[in-house]
């Protein structure tokens, strides 16, 4: 589904990302972990063509993202709160995203009804604008908005941060379900090793912009990651 080749990103003389090659097949739940400044958000921003690659390119379902915009209809994402429109209510925001993705109100409502649990009664019908919601609730709204319109690729940056435990558990179930049953390619980044190992079939570790580990998740994965990050901290 997604092919990354010879991708680098430089700011001035500083190389912040250098990925020689990476293939993400359709329907895979893909986890990206790494310390601060490892290049996770940079990689996701490149995937969404929000920044320009210094060299190399990304092909998303046969579309080269920095050449054509044809990847947009089947790709959706939630990177951070700047993806929300503060002066809309959550409902208005969902309908707006729905319209952009060719879904009418009924479609959006049908989808939202699946997330009643996830919202925990704190999002819909609150008579609040998104800018007035708490950080956690903003995040919930943003994540669900990324599910609108049957996307084939979903990119979520740090989806578990700021969420309460109940919601984290529900989100994990949702992501697993999307990848396994609906064949959606889900890309997730996180600082929480436990969450990614639970959710993702495959985990890639970025360190200082480079892929240092590419693991198929198994029972030992969590231990392996903990050892890696424990040591890399000791080194620094």
């Amino acid at each position, binding site marked *: 589904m997604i092919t990354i080749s010879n991708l680098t990103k430089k700011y001035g003389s500083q190389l912040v990302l250098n990925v020689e090659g990476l293939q993400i097949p359709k329907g895979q739940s893909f986890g990206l972990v790494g310390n601060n400044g490892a290049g996770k958000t940079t990689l996701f*921003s490149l995937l969404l063509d*929000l*920044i320009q690659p210094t060299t190399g390119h990304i092909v998303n379902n046969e579309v080269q993202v920095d050449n054509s915009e044809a990847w947009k209809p089947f*790709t959706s994402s939630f990177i951070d709160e700047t993806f929300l429109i503060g002066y809309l209510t959550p409902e208005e925001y969902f309908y707006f995203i729905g319209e952009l*993705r060719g879904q009418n109100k009924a479609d959006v409502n049908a989808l939202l009804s699946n997330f009643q649990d996830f919202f925990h009664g704190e999002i819909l019908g609150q008579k*609040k604008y998104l800018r007035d919601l708490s950080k956690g609730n903003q995040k919930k709204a943003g994540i669900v908005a990324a599910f609108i319109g049957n996307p084939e690729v979903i990119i979520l940056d740090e989806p578990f941060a700021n969420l309460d435990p109940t919601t984290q558990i529900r989100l994990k179930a949702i992501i697993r379900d999307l990848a396994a049953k609906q064949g959606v390619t889900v890309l997730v980044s996180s600082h929480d090793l436990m969450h990614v190992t639970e959710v993702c079939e495959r985990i890639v570790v970025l360190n200082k912009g480079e892929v240092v580990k590419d693991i198929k998740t198994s029972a030992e994965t969590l231990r392996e990651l903990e050892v890696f990050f424990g040591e890399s901290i000791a080194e620094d």
Partner: protein
Amino acid sequence: MFKHFANLQWKSFFRSSSLGKSLGMKILMAFFGLYMLISLLAAGGSLYFILKKAFPEVDPLLMVSRYMLYWILVELFLRYFMQKLPVMDIKPFLTLPVNKSSITHYILGRSAISLYNILSLFFFVPFGIVLLTKGYPALNVLCWLAAIMGMVVALNYLNFLINKNDKAFIAIGTILVALYAMNYFNVIPIERYFGEIFHTLYKTPVLAIVPWVAAVILYQANYKFLRTKLFLDDSLKKKTKLAESSELGWTKRFGAIAPFMQLDLKLIWRNKRTKMQVFISLLMVFYGLIFYGGDTYGPSSTIYVFVGIFMTGMFLSNFGQFIPAWDSEYYSMMMAQNIPLRKYLESKAALISVSIVLMFFLSIPYVYFGWEALAINTACAVYNFGVNIPVILFFGSFNKKRIDLTKSAMGNMQGTSATQFLVMIPLMVLPCALYFVLKTFISFEIAIGVLVLLGIVGLALRKPLMNKVTEAYRKRKYKMVAGFKERNS
């Protein structure tokens, strides 16, 4: 403790984003500030002579005293809009080992040296100096000035007390109008009564203590009120308004651009700064009266083209110059989302078009000043429609400064850069120059005709022009995304 606070204040001022602006911006702001101060100084310095000339038989100081009540009320009225107690800044101190009482004293004390208080002094001190040179007794004048200062400080603290509800604001406004009306229609000679009262401040220097006593009492009242409110859930909490969702179903008839139109309408209506611009644009319909009323330019002067472009295009320039910075908070989402850039821009164009048509209709009454006025305004509207819409959208592609929608509207220069000044040249200067040349060398009719023709040509070429504009936005996408992310630009 106060030294610490003062030090922090100093840093927050010099490290603030408004001071970090580009050099050109700083010079411009300094220029405006200086201009205002000089105007105030000049007004204060010349007030004595103006009053002496206008009312030779009345003591100018008595005249000033008569209007002092209005000054107080107007100042309260303005402060209500502009001045808020800066309580939000003190959140970090609540958990530090600092007495709540010293925090309170600090906030209140700091407000005493705010700009609003100093402004009136720039007016009254030169007036006082002129009084001294004119041989008024020094003791009386100095005490009178001290009394004025006391009143300013008292007003400062009174404002914080009444600032909390709209009723006080409406009451002040009503009293202001009522007093003026009663005096004007000779029901009660308010000005005379209050003139006497304020004049005694001058005649009996000891009384200068009265405003100061009032100031101290008001300070105490503020202190008592604020001290009990220093909790996160109380006055420090940002007030959130109840959201009202709206369908705006009628926008559906615009077809594919409907979702963006709805978004833009909500953007305008639900944010202070944009809302303010709508009101300003509507008020601009009266701008022409200044020039047409003067009746010194002749019916076809170039100044009227400027006025016409300005009136029918106020919203165009005010709102348009910051496209797409209005959407800067969520611009990366817009760029990652399934959005045809073309539709996004067309929606903005449609919105501006509606504003031009509306402003044109509102400007029709200017026909009272002659058919030329109507002709000029029509030509300007058509020109705005055909030429200026693509022009302003094109210049928008150079915007890369973030606008925080939640920030207030008053004096907010966020998002301003050289682009905003550059765009004025094609927007206003070009049509005026063109008109001037054609009118001078050929005729009024031809000049008007050419403006209309340009507008129609622009309209006919709308499609290719919009393609060019869209291309420009696409090219600068990465710069915009990066620029809009920088908070303190």
